[in-house]
């Protein structure tokens, strides 16, 4: 029983790391542009496939191969793959901003919800045309042998996921609070006009925010692929739970978002021990409860509307 609990806790933390990265991505664009990328899930999925394709290309295979059986992947290839996923997804994020967000940002009506969903649908259909609908089992950069201690079996990839998530969070927290770039981002979040008057290039900050947010989506896709196998339908679930984590923690507070992501991962994997099909339902009921009791999230700041 205890072993099963520990097991669930660790896999929950690993999945929670992916949710936390996604939640952080949502938080970044929301605080700087007051918009969210509703196709974040497709970005996660495409990010996973960019990584997969890089691995396949470097080992001399066509990018639409559906299996890694008989292919050995070196460490340098993995590094190239993760960099490719980060950069390609970041650039796609910039395209998303230009096409789908900038025309609508700051205007009433939230048209950007629709346009970002549209962008995601286009990405997904292009992805399906290139890679096909079949899921691909991906080798982990840190090996696929289960490590056992105290009877608990842990996949190294899960530990890697957790470690990377924590490093990214700490780094982000430091940048936001201690550097000029972070201060500029927070200024833009506070008031676009005033930041612009202070000589901050608001447009560049917003593009940067979308680049960063999408690159994080790519990173979580790359890291999730060996755990859950890469599939173009993988994204929606992760993005929804990442967003739920962000809501629970408070969209306006990056640290809260990270906490929410991890909490959700653990909760989900504990529910999984009990009844797998209730997983989603428990998660979303929790979100609705949090929104009812504290609409600003557990750590978010309450917005007072001045009348």
């Amino acid at each position, binding site marked *: 029983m205890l072993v099963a609990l520990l097991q669930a806790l660790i896999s929950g933390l690993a999945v929670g790391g992916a949710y936390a990265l996604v939640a952080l991505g949502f938080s970044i664009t929301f605080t700087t542009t007051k918009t969210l990328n509703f196709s974040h899930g497709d970005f996660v999925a495409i990010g996973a496939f960019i990584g997969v394709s890089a691995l396949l290309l470097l080992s001399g295979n066509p990018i639409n191969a559906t299996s890694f059986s008989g292919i050995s992947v070196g460490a340098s290839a993995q590094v190239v793959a993760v960099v490719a996923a980060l950069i390609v997804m970041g650039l796609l994020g910039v395209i998303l901003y230009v096409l789908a967000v900038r025309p609508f940002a700051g205007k009433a009506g939230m048209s950007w919800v629709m346009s970002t969903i549209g962008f995601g649908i286009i990405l997904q259909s292009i992805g399906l045309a290139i890679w096909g609908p079949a899921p691909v089992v991906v080798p982990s950069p840190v090996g696929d042998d289960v490590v056992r201690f105290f009877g608990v079996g842990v996949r190294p990839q899960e530990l890697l996921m957790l470690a990377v998530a924590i490093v990214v969070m700490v780094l982000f927290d430091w940048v936001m609070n201690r550097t000029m770039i972070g201060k500029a981002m927070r200024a833009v979040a506070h008031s676009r006009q005033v930041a612009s008057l202070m000589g901050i290039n608001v447009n560049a900050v917003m593009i940067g925010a979308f680049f960063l947010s999408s690159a994080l989506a790519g990173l979580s896709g790359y890291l999730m692929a060996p755990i859950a196998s890469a599939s173009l339908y993988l994204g929606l679930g992760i993005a929804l739970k990442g967003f739920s984590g962000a809501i629970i923690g408070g969209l306006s507070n990056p640290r809260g978002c990270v906490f929410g992501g991890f909490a959700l991962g653990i909760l989900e994997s504990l529910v999984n021990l009990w009844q797998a099909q209730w997983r989603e339902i428990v998660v979303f009921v929790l979100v609705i409860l949090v929104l*009812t009791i504290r609409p600003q999230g557990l750590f978010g700041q309450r917005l007072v509307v001045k009348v």
Partner: protein
Amino acid sequence: MNRYRVPLAIIAFAVAVGLAAAWVANDYYLRIAFMMCVYYLCAAGMNVLVGYAGQKSLGQAGLFAAGAYTVALLTTRADLSGWTAFAAAPIVAGLCGIVIAIPSLRVSGPYLAMVTLAFGVVVEKLVSEWTDVFGGAQGIYGIKPLTIAGEPFSSVQWVWFGLVLSVITQLLLRNLLRGRFGRALRSLQADEIASSSVGVRVYRAKVMAFVIAAVTCGIAGAMVAQQNQYINSDFIGFHLSIFILLLVLLGGSGSQYGPVIGAVVLTLVDALLARWPSVQHFVYGALLLFALYLMPNGIAGVFRSLLSRRVAPLPAPRPATQSSIGGQALVKGRAEEILLDVTQLCKSFGGVRPAQDVSFALKRGHIHALIGPNGAGKSTMINMLSGVLDPDKGNITFVGTQVGGQPSHVICQLGMGRTFQNLRLFSELTVLENVLLGRHCRMKNGFWASLFALPSARHQEADAKSRALNILEFVGLLPHANTAAGSLPYGLQRRAELARAMATEPQLLLLDEPAAGLNPQETAELGKLLKKIGELGITVLMVEHHMDLVM
């Protein structure tokens, strides 16, 4: 009769389509016509939610599923007849609509969109993974169809049935949206606080919009399940939610005929591209991405801007009387009584305390002013009185009723009207519609009376219009009645807001800096107007810095 022209034209159009369907008698084309009716029903309800109430829902597939699985389970497991199950479908879907409306009372914008999206995903997971009950991807076979004289509907009969339901829906929603409720929904899309201040019950209106959208989607789901006599979980995925939203946005959200256009165009696109599912997917994505950019008001919006719009001439109002412009008859004995009594009122925002133990009383029939330096808490006081903010401590008694902490619409109903420091007009609506919204809480036609356009509803609407025009004449805005409120110059916008507040028949009128931003001449005119308002028997409490106006 002028009143029946449009409804008759709609019915004639449907009859023509129905006859054409009987003549074609090709199963493939009949199927397309049937799906147009199904998607029209989804879009018509969704238009109320998205186009009028401004609530983006990304989970309509869940409501479609509620209707479809209701008929599926009731006819296969409970062995009820097709018609009984069909009647149950909108009820179940409507209840689900209430469930997703609950979070909308607390959150808005992107949060709400994500919550509705989550609802859709939960329903999808439920029906695809709880296979014992819902059959999952295998689906449920043997759903009983609708029958006529014991025989299942033929393809043509399904099209006719769909057309009849569509026409009924179009006519009923037209009744509802052209009057009191349509205005209320559009006002809450524009500004919930202002909407509540003129007496619109914001939460109830939102729930109403969600339930309307749920009911039409549920009916559509039931029709599809009963026509196919089969339903499975593949049909009700995220793509269906997006498709339903696209129907409204492409057709033209907030427009009467947008859903029809959306349903016809997208069903045709769907049928033409059905052979290439990946291309179809791509086209929908592109439409979502670019349609809003190129056509913000959908196809209906493009047509509207091409055809010059005919503005209905204003009806001649009845001669103005004191009561028709919101005046209060000063009944003997009521003059000089205490209208508003505030005792020991406190409010703090963290460490800032804009009000500490404030007590005062207002007598009926006077113009009062509240003065003080910036940050003294004057606006906070107005906001507490009108129910925008809840006081931390203390009592507010208005016309003998304890109103502290009550919602704005209740306070408005009791007879307290207000204007805002930073104008909160419904800028897309015309000046006349803004003032008509002020009449909202005084109109007595309920939901059903409006839905069926009963004589009482038509009478109320005509009466409200006449009074609104009287008020516009009183404040001198009659020539601007059909102008969008947001395009008026600033000084006139202030007057329009005043007219809207007067339309609520206030006993007490709260004015938050009515002269802010006005030049000396406009301020003097405002002073005269306020005096006239005072003469009508309306008590006024204003917050103001212009001492010449106050004195």
